[in-house]
């Protein structure tokens, strides 16, 4: 330390501390071979992009699956010749079987929740930008980081494989509820194996895939937490971190505590399926001809408790990084500090904490004491408070700003809109009495697709448009971006608002078709409308892909700081060099969102900008802090 303390420079050559023992992992030059550079890379930036590409592949699959589902719901019994080529058994003659529809539901949910909503915001953007935003050269454990990506990839392959094994894809839904899931194989339920083939079937591969994913997420979460606590650069105190870093940190804590529970539950379910244990298999279960287990009783509800103890934090794992990105982008393009920075941090932690105590609201109809239901209900509604704080502060950030309506800004505002629209129905569903009639209907689908699905996706879009210049050194086309935004924004509402109506009418989720339900015929035009909206919205996404890949090679050169933003990722070149700052160690002098500081030459002051001759001008600087100081830097006395 003695050596470091004598160094006065803002920028200090890395070589000066190259011998530092704890830094040994980072003093390697950039790798040269293709495989070390792009495939098994330990560079967090490459790994981040790998995660993003994986999520893009997964979202493409998941999206096409949803189109297939809509096709079957709208035109049941129609033959689609192309389908038969891909799925000769599930869609014999091109007509989707109900079981095939169920496997579409399962694959869509699993793909989206795990391999899109969990990987892209955290594994993708978090990996790329967390180290840069805190001024680190890499993650704390680069090799572990590489491992977590490739383990995730193996999980992805296992899930894809699950769709193509003998007997068809998994049909248990992304929640994998027993009893059917536990003994489906013995009943020859499609996708769950058969008496002859208890091992290699879709549902088992689904569990294996999820278990692998759990392990990968745990490794990733451990890395994130350590990096954030240990690798911040000089002057980067916790309360000077961008809100994105806070969101990745909270998410990592949630992942660290939630995924082990799913892993444990998955192990037990797997044993129930393959080794005749009865953790979740109730006693005296019979398929009509014979008693299926000799045991006297496990509990399918036990699975639900374990699953949702993971499952509810999981939805915050999906949405919190989106909240971080939204705060970050809103502040940047409103040219204003984040309103109530400190409150934003606490609200995020409050959401994360409360997320562990509300899992029961997924199980109101599984049979629980009314008192338990009431407790879960009250706790659930409590989440509305920190959520409202966040929404209020987003609006406060926008209020009176000189807003630049760039594409990332549009998506960030879209996030706020979707989060509110999806969130308010959470208040409806969180009440036991209302949930009685809404449970397992399209109302629930509308709710969670808006709030955790599409809102999180909008967070990712905002992040992609915002950080693309940093990641690839070129701008994405603003024009195409805006053309992408409007059909997407209107489209998702056109899809999911009708879902609520369908749910209120009583349309149950996960049904392959509603032909036999007279009372739902009245919804036929709505169903058709939604399907058309889906097709248009999905088509619009190809604009995004086109824009993305076109801009990588053909976009306008971006420069280091195209958005005139303040945080550390904009203090380095685009794309950043292998060690992020080219051997420099940055010093951070201020909070992350110092926009519109009175007296400053520009309307933004970067975190790395020292106070010029601060002794003389300190009243001015302090004045700036007072004015923009609605707690946003949190360091004043």
């Amino acid at each position, binding site marked *: *330390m003695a050596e*470091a*303390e004598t160094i*006065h420079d803002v920028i200090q050559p890395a070589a000066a*501390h190259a011998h*530092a*023992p*704890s*830094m040994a992992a980072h003093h390697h030059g950039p790798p040269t071979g293709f495989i070390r550079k792009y495939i098994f890379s330990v560079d967090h930036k490459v790994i981040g992009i790998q995660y993003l590409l994986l999520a893009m592949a997964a979202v493409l699959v998941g999206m096409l699956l949803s189109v297939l589902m809509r096709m079957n719901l709208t035109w049941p019994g129609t033959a689609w010749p192309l389908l038969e080529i891909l799925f000769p058994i599930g869609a014999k003659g091109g007509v989707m079987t109900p079981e095939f529809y169920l496997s579409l539901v399962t694959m869509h949910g699993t793909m989206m929740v795990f391999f899109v909503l969990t990987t892209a915001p955290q594994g993708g953007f978090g990996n790329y930008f967390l180290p840069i935003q805190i001024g*680190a050269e890499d993650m*704390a*454990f680069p090799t572990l980081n590489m491992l977590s990506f490739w383990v995730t990839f193996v999980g992805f392959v296992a899930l894809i494989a699950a769709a193509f094994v003998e007997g068809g894809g998994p049909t248990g839904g992304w929640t994998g509820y027993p009893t059917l899931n536990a003994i489906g194989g013995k009943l020859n339920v499609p996708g769950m194996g058969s008496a002859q083939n208890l091992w290699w079937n879709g549902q088992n591969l689904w569990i294996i895939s999820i278990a692998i994913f759990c392990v990968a997420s*745990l490794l990733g*979460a*451990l890395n994130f*937490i*350590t990096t954030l606590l*240990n*690798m*911040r650069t*000089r*002057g*980067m*105190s*916790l*309360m*000077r971190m961008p809100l994105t870093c806070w969101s990745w940190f909270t998410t990592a804590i949630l992942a*660290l*505590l*939630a*995924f*082990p*529970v799913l892993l444990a*539950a998955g192990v*037990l379910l797997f*044993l129930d399926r393959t*080794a*005749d*244990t*009865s*953790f979740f298999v109730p006693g005296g279960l019979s398929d009509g001809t014979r008693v299926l287990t000799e*045991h*006297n*009783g*496990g*509990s399918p509800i*036990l699975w639900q*408790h*374990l699953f949702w*103890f993971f499952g509810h934090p999981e939805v915050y794992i999906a949405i919190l990084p989106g909240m971080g990105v939204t705060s970050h982008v809103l502040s940047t393009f409103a040219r204003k500090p984040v309103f109530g920075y400190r409150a934003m941090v606490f609200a995020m932690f409050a959401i994360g904490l409360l997320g562990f105590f509300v899992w029961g609201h997924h199980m109101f109809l599984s049979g629980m004491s009314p008192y338990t239901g009431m407790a879960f209900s009250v706790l659930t509604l409590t989440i509305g408070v920190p959520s409202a704080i966040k929404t209020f502060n987003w609006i406060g950030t926008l209020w009176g700003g000189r807003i630049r309506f760039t594409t990332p800004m549009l998506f960030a505002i879209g996030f706020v809109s979707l989060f509110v629209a999806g969130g308010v129905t959470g208040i409806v569903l969180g009440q036991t009495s209302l949930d009685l009639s809404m449970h397992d209907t399209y109302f629930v689908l509308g709710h969670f697709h808006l709030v955790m699905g599409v809102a999180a996706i909008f967070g990712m879009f905002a992040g992609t448009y915002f950080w693309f210049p940093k990641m690839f050194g070129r701008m994405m086309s603003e024009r195409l971006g805006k053309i992408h935004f409007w059909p997407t924004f209107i489209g998702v509402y056109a899809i999911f608002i009708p879902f609520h109506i369908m749910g209120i009418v009583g349309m149950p989720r996960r049904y392959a078709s509603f032909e036999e339900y007279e009372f739902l015929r009245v919804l036929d035009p709505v169903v058709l409308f939604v399907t058309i909206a889906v097709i248009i919205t999905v088509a619009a996404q190809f604009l995004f892909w086109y824009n993305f890949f076109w801009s990588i090679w053909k976009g306008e050169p971006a420069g280091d700081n195209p958005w005139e933003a303040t945080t550390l990722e904009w203090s380095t070149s685009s794309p950043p060099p292998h060690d992020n700052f080219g051997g420099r*160690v940055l*010093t951070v*002098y201020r909070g992350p969102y110092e926009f519109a500081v009175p007296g400053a030459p520009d309307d933004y002051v970067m975190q790395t900008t*020292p*106070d010029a001759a*601060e002794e003389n001008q*300190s009243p001015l*600087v302090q004045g700036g802090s007072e004015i923009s100081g609605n707690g946003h830097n*949190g*360091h004043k006395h």
Partner: protein
Amino acid sequence: MAAGPGAVTVTRPVTPTRTARFGGNGPSGSNGGGSGGDRRGGGGQDWTPDRYRIGMWAAIGSILMLFTALTSAYIVRAGLPGSNDWQPITMPPLVWVSTALIIASSFTIVASRKALARDEMTGYERWLWVTLLLGVGFIGMQLLAWRQLVGQGVYLASNPHSSFFYVMTGLHGLHILGGVLALAFMVLRVRRQRGTSAGQGIDPKRRVATDVLGIYWHFMDGLWVYLLLLLILWR
């Protein structure tokens, strides 16, 4: 926590007032400063949250959640109303041997750490070996205990209590296996280093690794005792 975290001292010549104010107070200021110091050389007089230690505690947190989930499943399953298939198994006697081994190994790993602190590489290596052998012995005993149970005719699917016994010992055993592999790796490193870098002092990374592995090993030891008590007492 030592006073005057790195950032304060480091940057004082540049921004005396602001840095002192920003870097040195608030609930988190000292963290930021401390880690700033760590990046420039780590350890020493400043309080620096060490990355390996943080990583290990995070890992322990998640392992704890894994077994918490299993415990809650265990308790719920044991007390499930209307279910009468729970038949407590007789503990195979060998679990007592394995328990003795793992408790002993906690002491030997402390001994190796103390030897390292005194820079006694021979003692360090010896106690590491002993710990490794005890760890391997533990796994062997657990497997033999499974054999004993099988000998009694108690299998994985025999009844919920036996299912939980196999699952918990199995998952715990896998974690011990991980620790044993880490121990083996460290022992091999000592052997290799002995040839090359004699007299050059001890790599600080080795101290951290030994510390961190010690934390893990004690945790696994405690976890086993806890699981055993759970399986015996809550039936």
